[in-house]
């Protein structure tokens, strides 16, 4: 089958960089936001083209400096998803608060994320993940928030990844180097009790910046490409159960939080842990579920965050201890919050339903209690979301002197999210088939390890 011969991936990678140059050239932050949004939208189109190109066209060689970048079956659908997250983050930025440096960070994050998804070099992947993990420190510094707490968590994690990977490149690599790399990757996903970087990140960085640092779930790329081919079964199983425990723990924490941002941080932690658990199961059903859940969790959580950000922009930090009554002011945000939230917990007909069912079914061979633990995690996440919904959107209508209705730009974002949640639920068959093929390809690589 033929597809328009364009260097899709290269163009998708170049446009965020070109957008960054344009942002540097303009003075007004509002113009910078427009350039940023334009560059990301174009990059999204090219990333979509690159994903389609991967599935329907033959492999083609790339010219330098892009010869080491290529999408594979596992990461191809994530390229447009990643760019969409960035577009939504830019759409959700308030014009009155946006800064040029924030726009630059969004563009840089888009480039790094896309490069991490498509790089074929392990070392480059580790480098890109490290830069992506350190980007929020820049955000915190620009907001006059000390980043030391975040760095205290994340630097040792990155060091474990870097040292583990470096040791594995040696001809006589010690066996514990795999464990070190695995520990780094799993901790980057957030594992109890060393998960504290995620609530710290959401507490100190801007919501958009924190979101872009967490939601692409780039640690899954590292797990799929670096860890899964070489890690022994016992280590993977142990790490999987640590992730499962974290998913349940974070679900419980999300259900009992008193601040919206911490609620969201723990919800992200729970979802990240579920995806990581599924990857580390290293069975075709588990990895296929992980690849589906990766897409659905990233999109649903970004929809939830989109609503929360818009509320924060209007009403400041949000407490979950009282009922705010925002429904009367912004009913469409309430709908978006609920639909995206239900998408996160796998409500039937929405994007998360099939991945969650696949995950729970796929883990049955580990024992019914594993499926039960997953069902409990989903249940706790569901309780957390409905509690947050009732806290934010029910209660007495707040009185404001200015209208707080959604803007046209925000409405576009809302419509995109709601459509994705619904349509994503109905196009699952094709996605599942392709994810299963990708999972089998990944695990076939594990059968012939190439350390």
């Amino acid at each position: 089958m033929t597809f328009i011969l364009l260097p899709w991936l290269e163009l998708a990678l170049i446009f965020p960089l070109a957008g960054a140059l344009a942002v540097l050239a303009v003075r007004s932050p509002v113009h910078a936001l427009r350039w940023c949004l334009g560059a990301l939208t174009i990059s999204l189109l090219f990333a979509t083209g690159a994903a389609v190109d991967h599935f329907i066209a033959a492999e083609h060689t790339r010219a330098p400096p892009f010869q080491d970048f290529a999408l594979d079956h596992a990461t191809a659908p994530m390229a447009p998803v990643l760019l969409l997250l960035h577009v939504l983050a830019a759409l959700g930025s308030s014009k009155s608060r946006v800064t040029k440096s924030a726009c630059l960070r969004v563009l840089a994050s888009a480039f790094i994320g896309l490069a991490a998804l498509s790089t074929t070099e392990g070392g480059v992947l580790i480098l890109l993940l490290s830069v992506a993990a350190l980007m929020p420190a820049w955000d915190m510094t620009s907001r006059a928030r000390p980043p030391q707490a975040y760095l205290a968590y994340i630097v040792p994690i990155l060091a474990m990844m870097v040292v583990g990977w470096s040791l594995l490149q040696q001809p006589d690599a010690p066996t514990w180097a795999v464990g070190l790399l695995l520990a780094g990757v799993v901790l980057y996903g957030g594992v109890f009790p060393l998960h504290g970087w995620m609530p710290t990140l959401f507490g100190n960085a801007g919501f958009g910046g924190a979101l872009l640092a967490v939601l692409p779930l780039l640690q899954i790329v590292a797990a799929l490409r670096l860890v899964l081919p070489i890690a022994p079964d016992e280590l993977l199983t142990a790490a999987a159960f640590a992730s499962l425990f974290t998913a349940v723990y974070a679900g419980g924490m999300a259900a009992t939080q008193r601040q919206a941002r911490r609620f969201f941080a723990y919800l992200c932690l729970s979802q990240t842990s579920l995806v990581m658990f599924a990857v580390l199961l290293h069975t075709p059903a588990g990895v296929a579920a992980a690849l589906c859940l990766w897409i659905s969790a990233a999109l649903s959580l970004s929809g939830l965050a989109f609503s929360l950000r818009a509320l924060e922009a209007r009403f400041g930090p949000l407490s979950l201890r009282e009922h705010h009554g925002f429904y009367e002011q912004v009913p469409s945000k309430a709908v978006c919050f609920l639909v995206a939230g239900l998408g996160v917990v796998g409500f039937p007909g929405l994007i998360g339903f099939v991945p969650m069912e696949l995950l729970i079914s796929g883990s049955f061979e580990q024992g019914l209690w594993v499926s039960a633990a997953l069902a409990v995690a989903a249940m706790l996440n569901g309780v957390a979301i409905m509690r947050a919904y009732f806290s934010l959107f029910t209660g007495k209508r707040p009185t404001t002197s200015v209208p707080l209705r959604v803007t046209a730009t925000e409405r576009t974002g809302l419509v995109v999210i709601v459509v994705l949640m619904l349509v994503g639920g109905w196009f699952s068959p094709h996605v599942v088939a392709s994810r299963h093929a990708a999972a089998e390809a990944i695990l076939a690589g594990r059968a012939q390890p190439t350390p």
Partner: protein
Amino acid sequence: MIDSATLLTLLGLAIIAAPAGLLASFFLAFMLDRRPSEESVGRILKAAIAVSLLAAITAAGVMIGTGRDHYPIVLGDWVVAPNFHLRFQFILDLLSLSYVILALVLCNIIGAFSTRYLHRERGYNRFFVLFAIFLLGMVVAALSDTVETLFAGWEMVGLSSVLLIAFFQERPAPPRNGLRVWIVYRVCDAALMLAAVLMHELSGGGDFDHLVGAGAWPHVGEVPMAPHFVLLGALFVIAAAGKSALIPFSGWLPRAMEGPTPSSAVFYGALSVHLGAFLLLRINPLLASSVWLSAVVVALGLVTAVFAFLAGRVQTDIKSALAFASLAQVGIIFAEIGLGLDYLALVHLLGHACLRTLQFVRAPSLLHDHHQLENAIGARPEDEKPGWEHKLSPRWQARLYRFSLERGYLDSLLEKLAVRPFLWLFHGLDALDRGIAARLGDRSISAWAPKPRRPE
């Protein structure tokens, strides 16, 4: 000339497509940022239910005319993976058609009632969107022939139920009660989800005919006696008990009365509260395969019936009294199912749903009805005579009264055994997390320090 099988397939699809179309029209209005008028909402609703009901009645007529006792509608596999498949499959049989016709008739009545009852109410459109979700959920659950489609309908019913309990959202109590109900629903949904997974493993798919046989309801087939099947049955019973507010989940039912009266009528008087019984009727061979499971269902039903009778005697508002009266009947229906009296349970369910809906919709005009009655007979009706409880000693009367007034202490028991330990654990872990972050220099922790506690 169209053959009967094709006709039944088309009719079955029409039963589901009409409520789906209703929901889609609301969704389209949301996407286009349009707010339909009260008249158009009422008209679309009536049209959708009429189409669906007509299709259901015609399907029943065709089945009777052609002598078919059941007809599966297989729409194919939706998701296929080596260890998993999700199939769209519905069934037309005595149980599904009875329940779906009941649901559509009652929704038609309540829909028409609500267009007047909620006239100019803020949230009019929100009510009907949730009503449409409920209707679709109920139709999908009633016609489902796979556990996944049943789960989809089940969840839609649960969601709409919770959001309608919180319908009067400016007051603090409805959202709180809605959240409580949601928590109970989620616990029971987890049981149903696990049952679905176990069913896939045991019978190789989520289709009910794989599990209980492909015959016509109620003489479907036999299920082998095995520990895994008992576990599967127990998970279904937990799910059903939660949905139907059986003990120990009964505490949510009076809380659900916070919603508007039409939704209380159709949810807790008629349809939603019977969905658990419907599920057990659908899997009746599974219950029949284990004496212990049947005994548990009978015991659960009878204990709930006695409890609901006692609690209902001391309620001081009409909706709560009706809720407990419903629960008592649901308990008896469960006992009938446990005893294997499937036809009786189905007839009981249908009759009870109709009676209770009527009582609920008359509830707001109870005083008016009493005045009319007094005017008609020219005197006050006689007070209720002392019942059997007067034969008890005063001490036991007081105990029984307190037990009934406190609704069997179920809420406080659940709070003491489940809620408080859960909150204690996670608030403690949260304090630990915050402490570590503060020591590492996270300044946001002080900004997030909890304010003086208000009641949650």
